[in-house]
């Protein structure tokens, strides 16, 4: 028995020590090793690995190690690894985080060849999206916009015309609120995209998120209240904790807002017969809240690593690879060549048309994450019927003004 214990202890200690050594990175002779970090989204992660493999084949002296974390954890992981000096070389960065990274000197300006490619091939909206303090800091990874997706059969069944205004949908939602097995619209009641969907309505109603000088909240206004009240009608607290998109896929909702990357979910549905993406409804304006994800390069690395990183980013973003990505995953095309090539794709068509009404919904302040968290919290509370929309907007305003001073 004693021998067994000693044996086990020795084995355990050996395991521990070997793990400790394994944790250190061993780099092979002559190869440039770059670490690549993105967030989790299974089909996209697989595609990126494929493209990374292709890059490594074409560039045998570069080794790419790819890892990914959940969207909700990416920010903290990125920041803490930057602090610890263990950050990846190529990082998928969410637009709102760039001000902090740029101001802190953590990400590198794009080299001239990359800048040229961007200036020649991006639509204006795209060039603006990757420019901070007048300099270009990366390639667009993808443009996120959630536009409306319609299930026309539900409206046909009810004998209703599909409205073209948010209030129109709200009226229908009221009219058919007695139906227990379906909803007219299913905007997100709780989760990551509540704020962006709400911002779409806010701007559509003519409201603003922050004042021009970015010092105060501007959404606690008549427009903001109208937008919030309408949002309450278009979302359903019963979907909290589950998935309103699933309701749509099962044919139980007439409208949902989602992004182009979700195409496989919809196409795999065995129930939904017809559906299409379309430009958003109008209220006062036609507006779609959107955002970008960028590929940025870490400054804390050797020149060889940085050059390899930019080469890899350039590779991922060239016409051919980006088109491949857009077609399989369903990204919005924004490179001139891609827009031409994809105009025939039914799924992408609505999104491509919606880009005309796109606006970046996050402000370029360093603590946008916290601002968005406050907004999201109060919106979730009023959707869950815990507080009134007036209270939600007032609470959010107080909280955000404190953050902005």
């Amino acid at each position: 028995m004693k021998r067994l214990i000693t044996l086990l202890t020795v084995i355990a200690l050996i395991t521990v020590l070997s793990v400790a050594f394994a944790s250190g990175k061993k780099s092979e002779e002559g190869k440039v090793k770059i670490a690549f970090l993105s967030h989790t989204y299974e089909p996209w992660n697989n595609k990126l690995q494929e493209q990374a493999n292709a890059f490594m084949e074409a560039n045998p002296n570069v080794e790419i190690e790819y890892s990914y974390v959940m969207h909700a954890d990416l920010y903290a992981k990125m920041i803490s690894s930057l602090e610890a000096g263990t950050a990846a070389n190529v990082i998928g960065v969410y637009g709102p985080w760039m001000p902090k990274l740029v101001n802190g000197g953590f990400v590198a300006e794009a080299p001239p060849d990359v800048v040229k490619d961007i200036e020649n091939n991006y639509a204006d909206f795209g060039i603006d999206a990757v420019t901070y303090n007048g300099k270009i800091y990366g390639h667009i990874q993808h443009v996120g916009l959630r536009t409306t997706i319609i299930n026309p059969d539900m409206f046909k069944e009810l004998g209703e015309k599909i409205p073209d205004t948010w209030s129109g949908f709200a009226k229908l939602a009221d009219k058919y609120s007695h139906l227990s097995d379906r909803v007219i619209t299913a905007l997100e009641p709780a989760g990551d995209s509540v704020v962006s969907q709400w911002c779409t309505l806010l701007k559509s109603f003519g409201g603003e998120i922050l004042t021009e000088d970015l010092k105060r909240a501007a959404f606690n206004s008549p427009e903001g209240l109208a937008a919030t009240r309408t949002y309450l009608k278009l979302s359903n607290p019963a979907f909290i904790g589950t998935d309103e998109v699933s309701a749509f896929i099962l044919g139980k909702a007439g409208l949902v807002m989602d992004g182009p990357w979700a195409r496989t979910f919809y196409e795999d549905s065995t129930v939904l017969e017809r559906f299409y993406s379309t430009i958003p409804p109008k209220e006062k304006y036609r507006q779609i809240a959107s955002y970008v994800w960028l590929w940025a390069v870490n400054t804390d690395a050797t020149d060889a690593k940085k050059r390899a990183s930019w080469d890899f980013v350039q590779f991922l973003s060239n016409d051919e690879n980006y088109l491949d990505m857009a077609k399989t995953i369903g990204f919005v095309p924004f490179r001139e060549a891609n827009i031409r090539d994809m105009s025939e794709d039914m799924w992408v068509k609505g999104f491509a048309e919606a880009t005309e009404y796109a606006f970046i919904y996050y402000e370029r302040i360093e603590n946008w994450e916290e601002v968005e968290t406050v907004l999201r919290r109060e919106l979730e509370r009023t959707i869950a019927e815990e507080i009134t929309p007036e209270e939600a907007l007032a609470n959010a305003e107080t909280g955000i003004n404190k953050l902005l001073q």
Partner: protein
Amino acid sequence: MKPTVFGKKVIKTIVFIIIAVLFLIPFWWMIVTSLKPPQEILLYPPTLFPKEINLRNYVDIFKRVQLITFFKNSIIVALGVTTVAVFTSTIGGYIFAKFSFRGKNAFFMFILSTIMVPLTVIIIPLYMMAIAVGLKNSLLALIIPGWVNALGIFLVRNFLASIPDSYIEAARIDGCSEFMIYLRIILPLLKPAIAAIFIFIFMANWDSFFWPLIVIDDVSKRTLPLGLGLFTQAFGVQNWNLIMSATLVSIFPVLLVFLFFQRYFIKGISLSGLKQ
């Protein structure tokens, strides 16, 4: 009218069954859900038994979620902690039980007081320390903090308090070195305590979530709770069958071990509670 003996037995049996059912329902539902195909998950009212047994989920889940890697990491961490913790607890407990020295009581109170220190207070400094020594994102950061355990020391001390000193003194006079006494005499005596400590430290570590959540970045280094929890956040409603199969696979090994060794588990827990 006094209840008959038979009547009492019937009531007892009914209560027994109700309690057993209440505790087992989640497990049964886990199994049932994991065997359903995606379309059947979304039926309401839900079917109480799968219409068709669908074992494909179990194959799929290994392809989509790196359960084996998570298992491996959890075992490395849990063993790495528990073996050393048993060692420190037994030596520490022995010293406090059988030796006297200046400040002994103060030190013992000091060690005992660490039980009251909440994880939430020390977690931020530990995080800063891990970053500073370059152990962020390393399994060692999960292992080292567990190497000393106040409860373990306490248990061993209590256990040894009732062992007469004469035995030990005799061995000393015979010329045994202190370490040999510890190894040859004390450790074998401590077998039940060691089993108890091993089990509860292993279990606590196996289930640890908050600390690994903030320390580990790479998917390949995640422990089981972390891997299971974070991955399932990504799946939509129609994937609950997959989530449930992943869950079942994750808990199955420990459940099996528990069922075989339940006597030791239960004895161990009751030992830790008796603070006589």
